[in-house]
């Protein structure tokens, strides 16, 4: 049997089929993380923001007209929500409904600590990218989208995507830590010979 199309899943979700909506979430999780991360950077509230995005998507499925691809619509909802979440002044507002725990994603406190450290290390490289540069990098590496898909999501020509990614890589390379990887040591070894 063929996998259901996005349109099928939307229709069934509107009728209250929770499993259909779960499939929509699974298909677009990385895309929404990419959209949110490109706005907020690495952030402790990111899981919560991503869940809020999907809740908003569920409540607005009826207004998705199918004129664009579902992923394009979801991407723009996610970015808009992330922009609002960042601009909302958090400290004075009531604490928001907290994110439901992501059980299978969190094998244990040690693994979670390691994950957070790895993300913080990556943020030191990615954090220097602004606007579209970060967007393209998140879409390419986190959401694992092809150049043509990124072009469609951003509404720009594919050549622009290549240029943005190219410049982003050069910027990030300048921020790479020099000492902690085998690549550098191999190079030094070769030079020492």
């Amino acid at each position, binding site marked *: 049997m063929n996998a259901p199309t996005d349109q099928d899943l939307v229709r*069934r979700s509107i*009728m*209250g*089929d*929770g*499993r*259909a*909506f*779960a*499939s929509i*979430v*699974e*298909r*677009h*999780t*990385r895309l929404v*993380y990419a959209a949110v991360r490109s706005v907020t950077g690495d952030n402790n509230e990111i*899981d919560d923001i*991503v*869940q809020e995005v*999907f*809740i908003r998507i*569920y409540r607005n499925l009826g207004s998705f007209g199918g004129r664009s691809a579902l992923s394009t619509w979801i991407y723009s909802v996610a970015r808009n929500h992330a922009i609002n979440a960042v601009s909302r002044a958090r400290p004075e507002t009531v604490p928001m*409904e907290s*994110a*439901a*725990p*992501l*059980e*299978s*994603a*969190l094998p244990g406190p040690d693994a979670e600590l390691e*994950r957070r450290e*790895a*993300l913080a*290390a*990556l943020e030191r*490289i990615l954090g220097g990218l602004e606007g579209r540069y970060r967007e393209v*990098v*998140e879409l390419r*590496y*986190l959401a*694992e989208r092809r150049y043509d898909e990124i072009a469609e999501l951003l509404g720009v020509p594919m050549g622009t995507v290549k240029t943005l*990614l*190219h410049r982003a*890589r*050069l910027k*990030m*390379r300048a921020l*790479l830590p020099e000492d902690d*990887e085998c*690549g*550098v040591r*191999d*190079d030094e070894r070769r*030079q020492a010979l």
Partner: protein
Amino acid sequence: MRDDRRCERYEELLPDLLDGILPEDHAAEVRGHVERCDACRRSLEALGRLERELCRLPSLTPDGAAVAAAVTGRLGLERRSRAASLVHSLPLERLALPLGIAAIVLSTFRYFGGMAERLTAALTSCLSGLAGAFEELAATSPSAVDSSALYLSSALILIGCAALSLTALRIVRR
């Protein structure tokens, strides 16, 4: 060895080389230069390292199933999902209306026509397979046909009402 102007040009091509999107003759030329030039080799290695770092991003992100479970939990969708998908798996949507109308038409035959023959005729045209059995039964025992027709039409009325209210519910929810 470093020739800044040439190196700049090659460095520009390194990301495409890593991506594997450089035409082969071009790629060979860049690889040839990288072999001889320490600065460009270091640059290529740094880009490779960057690539490996960035490729960790998906594995550091919660997987879709966990996010889906959390979101449907927050929306209170899990309890409804089984019933909803069961309903969806039956072709009720398409069958509801014709089934409802057929059921009511058949049951009026039973009550207003009042005759087993007419019911049998209606069944012949609607459900020819079932009708064969009915006619056989009618020949042997007319009263059995009458009482089984009563059961059948009551069951059909129930199915018809259920089907019609399901259709009405769908229209209202839309």
